[in-house]
């Protein structure tokens, strides 16, 4: 990774009031929130009945992943993928724990298999017919940075193109008292070794990122995936260097060339 530069071929984004990357770019440029934005994405990759039943974290992850692939002109079935989420689906965790505390034998089998941290990765590979490798990881505040490091390591290890998706949903029920996450937020990048105009390079360094003050960071500050937002703000505007939380006392310094 040291010194290795990769191309950003496509970007996907969704949060409350900003249901696309274009809406996010307009917002960063001083625009307003989209007034009639949907409350939950409706990802085309899922069959209509699954779309309604899908956990909100799965819905947002698939929505931004497909948007990034579409922007990149890449077939989703052709890409290995990295799904990064701090908490997974807290609504399902709440359901599982509440049911186990009251009547464990009534646990729903569908909710159980949707409770795995790689649920979004699973639905993505099933929906797109992708048989390439897919992973799901968590690193608390450093989740997105560690996902980006893994995506860059996959490119260094021989992959031509990699999909990276960061997402988190809202805490519900008693979990709200410990797992601090509000709203729904997802961001995705298609990263490639192929040449391109928008490029990125990342290095791990010591330090703690300064408080994020950009428009997206202020809008979605309460979501657990907010630590990724400084990068999306820089991509939306003309930022050329950002630092992301990469764990206690460590940061991922990301340099961007807009070409």
């Amino acid at each position, binding site marked *: *990774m*040291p010194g290795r530069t990769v191309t950003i071929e496509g970007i996907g984004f969704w949060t409350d009031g900003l249901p696309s990357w274009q809406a996010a770019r307009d917002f960063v440029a001083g625009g307003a929130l989209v007034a009639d934005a949907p409350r939950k994405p409706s990802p085309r990759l899922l069959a209509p009945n699954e779309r309604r039943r899908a956990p909100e974290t799965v819905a947002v992850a698939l929505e931004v992943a497909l948007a990034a692939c579409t922007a990149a002109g890449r077939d989703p*079935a*052709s890409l290995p993928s990295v799904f990064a989420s*701090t*908490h997974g689906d807290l609504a399902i*965790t709440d359901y*599982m*724990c509440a049911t*186990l*505390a*009251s*009547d*464990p*034998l009534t*646990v*729903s*089998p569908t909710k*159980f*298999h*949707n*409770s*795995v*941290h*790689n*649920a979004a*990765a*699973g*639905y993505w*590979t*099933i929906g*797109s*017919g992708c*048989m*390439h*490798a*897919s*992973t799901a*990881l*968590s*690193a*608390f505040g450093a*989740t997105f940075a*560690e996902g980006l*490091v*893994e995506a860059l*390591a*996959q490119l*260094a*290890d*021989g992959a031509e193109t990699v999909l990276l998706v960061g997402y988190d949903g809202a805490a519900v029920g*008693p979990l*709200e*008292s*410990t*797992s601090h996450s509000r709203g729904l937020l997802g961001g995705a990048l298609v990263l490639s070794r192929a040449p391109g105009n928008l490029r990125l390079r990342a290095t*791990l360094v010591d330090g703690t990122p300064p408080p994020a003050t950009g428009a997206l960071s202020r809008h979605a500050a309460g979501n657990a995936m907010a630590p990724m937002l400084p990068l999306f703000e820089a991509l939306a505007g003309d930022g050329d260097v950002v630092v992301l939380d990469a*764990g*206690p006392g*460590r940061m991922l310094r990301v340099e961007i060339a807009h070409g």
Partner: protein
Amino acid sequence: MDVPRVPQVQPSPAPPVLAITAHTATTALGRGRDAQANALRGRRGGLRRNDFGDGVAGEQRLDTWIGRVDGLEDVVLPATLARWDCRNNRLAWLALQHDAMAERVDALRAHRGAKRVALVLGTSTSSIGATEEAYAHLAGDGRHFPSGLDEPIVHTPHSLGHFVQQLTGLRGPCITVATACSSSAKVFAQAARLINAGIVDAALVGGVDTLCGSVLFGFNSLGLVSAAPCRPFDAARDGLSLGEAGGYAIIERAEPGQPGLRLCGYGESSDAHHMSTPHPEGLGARLAMQAALARAGIEAGDVGYLNLHGTATPANDAVEARAVAALFPDTLHAGSTKGWTGHTLGAAGIVESVFALIALEEGLLPGTLNSDARDPACGAQIHFDNARSGSLRYAMNNSFGFGGNNCSLVFGTA
């Protein structure tokens, strides 16, 4: 759903030369490597009648067998780590105290530098057992976690990685991989990539999963839990036995001429089929195995031992047997060790990798415990009896998870 297009397996441009310089596991068979080797050699299983859980979970206790690690209830974490206390982190701590693993990690940190060592750990449910406990004892208003169970870092998947980071003082990338039952096999692949990319020089990898209501009642809801000790690849198998375990391995860039164990290859794939049912022809499993062989630069016939995923569910074992028969010659010795340990879920990858490393070290090839009537789907590769080999060069481990998430690893010696 689209018809999956089968990706071509690409050989690695520069195969990694990665040494495995330490390994350990703690399971229902006991604490540390030798306890595992002795139980495998003596064909002594670790399953017991389900005695896990209290309160409502105890009243509705499932009629099944479990691979429980003795003594976790009595583990007291060092005072500085009390914040992270929960069953899963206790097992993470306990597993690090064997085979001099804690001392080896200290030496590794001193030798390589803390920032040059990654920490990549796998788990399926991490410390959700503590979240379940909090829900069973909510504070008066029913909306808050009770005091003593309200540490945010315990109620999130990265509880495991964050805890072991505090425990070891490592400062390289620190990741919790959570791809269900392939989690702690994939940590080997991710660590290898981090080393190959020059981000670090070494990694502590591993996995920890502990028994909890979510997995016992969750797998029960899918009809996948057996009332008897699990019987992998038996014609009459009727489900899995759940277990808990923790384990670690150190991976380092090999020095020229350095003898010892090697991580030779890794392969990862997706079934693109169903969230909780494997691909009917085992296509994803086969792709993962082929990719691991290709990266290792070896033929299927070079592998002497394969630790199968072999969960003893009707679907998994039939599909895996078919995929193995399609890929390997009859001379392979393949078996499932789930009858010894139970299915340790997110820890299965590290536990069964340690078993593959023991096979390479001792020539001990475990068969399959509790099974006696072979499923007709089994090829000649699948063995119930243990065997010995004086010439084992490569050993392989399969781990497959929900979401159709597959990982195969190839280990060798140099």
